[in-house]
């Protein structure tokens, strides 16, 4: 009886954790993409990967702290041979689950010159940010990120600027 109760509790917890992951369907894009990246880490595998991060390496220690409390990290990047291989309807299908009241769009930037957009959504919870979603489009690339769990956006952004990605100079013209 106790075992049955414990099993039910575990299933409910697993369901609650899984409910936060965005249900995105990548089938259409995957068929059209020339290259793709698929990172899907959750539960024991995420904890194992985190435990392998170094405590002495400065960057890895920061990442370890950043991802330590997460429940899941899901990243998909699709690269296409030429522009126009994915439509706005495709992008809208990824936005659809983010229209719910628990999600809030905090940043949306668009560059006409480069044809790039980045949209950042957060999932608000009583204790703070409980999840993150990013939809980033470029003419020949589409990136979707879903992070489940409490995440420090400043630390994540700071780490993103350290991986050989050129820092964008702030315009100092006066």
């Amino acid at each position: 009886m106790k075992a049955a109760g414990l099993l039910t509790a575990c299933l409910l917890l697993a369901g609650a954790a899984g409910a936060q992951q965005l249900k995105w369907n990548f089938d259409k894009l995957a068929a059209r993409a020339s290259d793709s990246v698929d990172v899907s880490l959750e539960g024991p595998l995420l904890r194992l990967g985190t435990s392998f991060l170094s405590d002495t390496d400065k960057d890895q220690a920061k990442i370890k702290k950043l991802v330590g409390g997460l429940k899941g990290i899901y990243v998909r990047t699709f690269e296409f041979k030429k522009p126009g291989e994915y439509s706005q309807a495709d992008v809208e299908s990824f936005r659809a689950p983010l229209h719910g009241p628990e999600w809030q769009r905090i940043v949306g930037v668009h560059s006409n010159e480069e044809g790039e957009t980045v949209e950042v959504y957060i999932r608000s919870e009583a204790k703070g940010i409980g999840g993150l979603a990013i939809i980033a489009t470029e003419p020949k690339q589409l990136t979707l990120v879903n992070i489940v769990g409490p995440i420090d956006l400043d630390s994540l952004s700071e780490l993103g600027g350290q991986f050989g990605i050129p820092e964008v100079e702030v315009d100092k013209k006066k």
Partner: protein
Amino acid sequence: MAPLEDELKAALRRSEPSPDFTERVLARVAAAPVRRAPRVSQMWVRWVAAMAATLLLAAGGLEYRHYQGERAKSQVLLAVRIAGSKLNKAQKKVQMMTHRSIS
């Protein structure tokens, strides 16, 4: 039928063993090699082999777990790199626009 019966009777006729039959049987039994219990050294060899097999399995398991861990670590780094770079790009754009609008 009679010749067949005669032949059978002749073939199955009771004959007494030779007088030294018992001695010969006992001598054969005494000469046969005896299956002895395994020696202590043989038991050690088996035990060491079993231990070696167990250690090999354990080492293989650890090695696989290490491989899984390194792979998961690479995936964590890749995911943070991609997510962080996109977030950083958005943040910088916002900073740039804010700076432009102020100046």
